[in-house]
């Protein structure tokens, strides 16, 4: 007994030492603080841009001296602020689930949109629209979670059964095939039940018209997910060194994998249920934050959340301004940024 406890202590000790060695370079905290400030500024800019530009004065008034009969105030409070909060939350969710997926699969191409998770969500939402048109927002979120699980489940099953597991190219192809299948089925449903217009939104993606109520629901569910993700970051870092080693250091790999997968589904499902399919954020951001922050997930995960939020807030500003007064689907814009990035990764990856 004594022996075992001692052994465990040393395991903990080794873990600590390992984390120390892996821990990010000194400016990590500084970078994170600065990006949080940048994010807040960006959100401020975003709030002021819209059909009618609203001055900083009015924004401050709306926040601190709210007047319900003042239309600009209500617009800010009820429309623009929820929208921007939604953009930053969705960005953060997608980026963090991308980080976790890449950590779990040790696969640089893993990300919600490439792995068919987002099209799974959209597929289930299509089913909900067609068969249960009376679904309220809570039910829609549940459908979306179920869909995320379906898409991810299909891709993972392909990975489990295939020889040599999920290589990057197999993962990408499996994702493409699963997405193609689910999208075809959704289109058939949409055409047959004449809900194409309701569903096309979920494919184009966007945060226009998001209301505070839905932001509140989703953020509560997903913030829990984010917090658990931060809690797991230590184990993920050690798992990044290889499963054998992590096992040796006393990490319950099966358990961690289960919880992380659950978090990925919750975060992605929540993101899709408010913003539809917004691609590539979960692919780009993890790579960028790993470049900046090193391999320590205790820094990588929070910074991914912040960077992801910044990217989507920025993309959303572009979506509103490019073709005023019409909205450009934000999913198409993130794809425009994401594709070149994916290509660079693909060039690196395709050695074999």
């Amino acid at each position, binding site marked *: 007994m004594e022996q075992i406890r001692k052994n465990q202590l040393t395991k903990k000790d080794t873990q600590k030492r390992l984390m120390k060695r892996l821990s990010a370079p000194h400016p990590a905290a500084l970078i994170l603080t600065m990006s949080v400030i940048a994010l807040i500024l960006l959100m401020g800019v975003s709030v002021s841009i819209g059909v009618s530009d609203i001055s900083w004065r009015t924004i401050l008034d709306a926040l601190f001296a709210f007047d319900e009969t003042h239309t600009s105030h209500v617009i800010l409070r009820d429309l623009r602020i929820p929208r921007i909060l939604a953009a930053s939350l969705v960005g953060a969710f997608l980026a963090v689930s991308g980080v976790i997926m890449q950590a779990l699969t040790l696969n640089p191409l893993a990300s919600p949109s490439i792995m068919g998770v987002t099209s799974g969500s959209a597929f289930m939402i299509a089913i909900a629209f067609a068969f249960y048109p009376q679904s309220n927002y809570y039910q829609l979120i549940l459908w979306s979670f179920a869909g995320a699980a379906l898409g991810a489940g299909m891709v993972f099953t392909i990975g489990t059964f295939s020889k040599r597991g999920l290589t990057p190219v197999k993962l990408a192809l499996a994702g493409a095939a699963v997405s193609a299948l689910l999208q075809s*089925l959704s289109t058939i449903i949409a055409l047959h039940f004449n809900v194409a217009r309701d569903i096309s939104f979920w494919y184009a993606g966007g945060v226009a018209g998001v209301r505070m109520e839905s932001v509140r629901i989703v953020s509560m569910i997903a913030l829990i997910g984010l917090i658990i993700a931060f809690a797991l970051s230590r184990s993920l870092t050690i798992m990044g060194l290889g499963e054998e080693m992590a096992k040796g250091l006393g990490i319950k790999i099966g358990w961690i994998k289960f919880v992380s997968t659950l978090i990925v589904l919750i975060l992605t499902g929540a993101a899709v249920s408010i913003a539809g399919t917004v691609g590539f954020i979960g692919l780009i951001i993890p790579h960028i934050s790993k470049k900046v922050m090193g391999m320590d997930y205790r820094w990588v995960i929070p910074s991914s959340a912040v960077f992801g939020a910044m990217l989507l807030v920025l993309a959303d500003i572009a979506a509103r301004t490019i073709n005023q007064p019409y909205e450009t689907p934000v999913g198409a814009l993130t794809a425009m940024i994401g594709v070149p990035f994916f290509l660079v990764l693909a060039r690196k990856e395709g050695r074999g």
Partner: protein
Amino acid sequence: MTHVDDHSPLKDKVFKRSLFLFLFLLFLLAVLILISLGSGHLSLTPADIWLTLTGSGTGAQELLLYQFRLPRIILAVLVGIGMASAGAIFQGVTQNGLADPGIIGIHSGSGFFVVLFLYLVSLSQDQPPVWANIGLPFVAFAGGTTAALLIYVLAWKEGITPVRLVLVGIGINAGFSAALLLIQLRMSESDFNRAIIWLSGSIWNASWATVLRLIPWILIFLPLALYKARILSVMQLGEEMAVGLGTAVEKERVKLLIIAVALSAASVSVAGGIAFVGLVAPHLARRLVGGKFQRMIPVSAMIGAILIVLSDSIARTVLAPSEIPVGLIVSVIGAPYFIYLLITIKE
């Protein structure tokens, strides 16, 4: 892969087997076509079809059969042939069993160009001029070539590896799809819907005119593909071996790619982006007759034709009188097969 020497006594046996198989598939296709001729919103009994084909049907039956169903079925056959043989060549050139022109962005490249072209034409004139329709295959070809070129250039890093090619292709596909979405939203609503249906792959408005637009492309490029099939087989032996046997690999590769892009783009221009045919058909063909492209391309073309005719029959009967774009049915059939391949493939 078994490489059979030209003078091997095996050759006869293999050849006979392939020929038998080809004839069997041809028979199957003929049966399917007959069934397909009879199925649809208005149905015809086999007796009606027989009477009409022998020239003693009613005028309306003749109209239905000769002007509506037959061009549609022939178009399905041609599109199947074009896409499947293009897929076979792509697989041969990239030496990757998973290189479907629909997945690696050739189709969305063609589609992007076609939709852009239609959009620009609709901007400049009230009515689309006559040449617009005839020009479509060329525009699609330009789009497919652009996509292929982009993939080739971006995947080039001291040579091409099959894996990198497919990954880059997936990226190109995503890029073109996003660009497509951006133009589509600038279109008016009716054009938008039409574009969506067209992009999902649809041949419901087939007519002899559409058949005539596609036929020259198939007639020119399919024989070329068959003619080049030997070189494709040689290339499978590995680059060094191929060079040793006197094949200018890089040059031939480019020629073959042009042929494949032409076949697939012309098909896309009339039928929209039907994915998975170019993947499933060659794969089944390889299982049935082995990896020699001289035998594999014709068999794969047959399978492609069968697949599309079958899917189209389903597409117009399940929800009749409404129709489902045929590409969606093909995806629902093809994607699971593709997934099965992914699981079993040994890289």
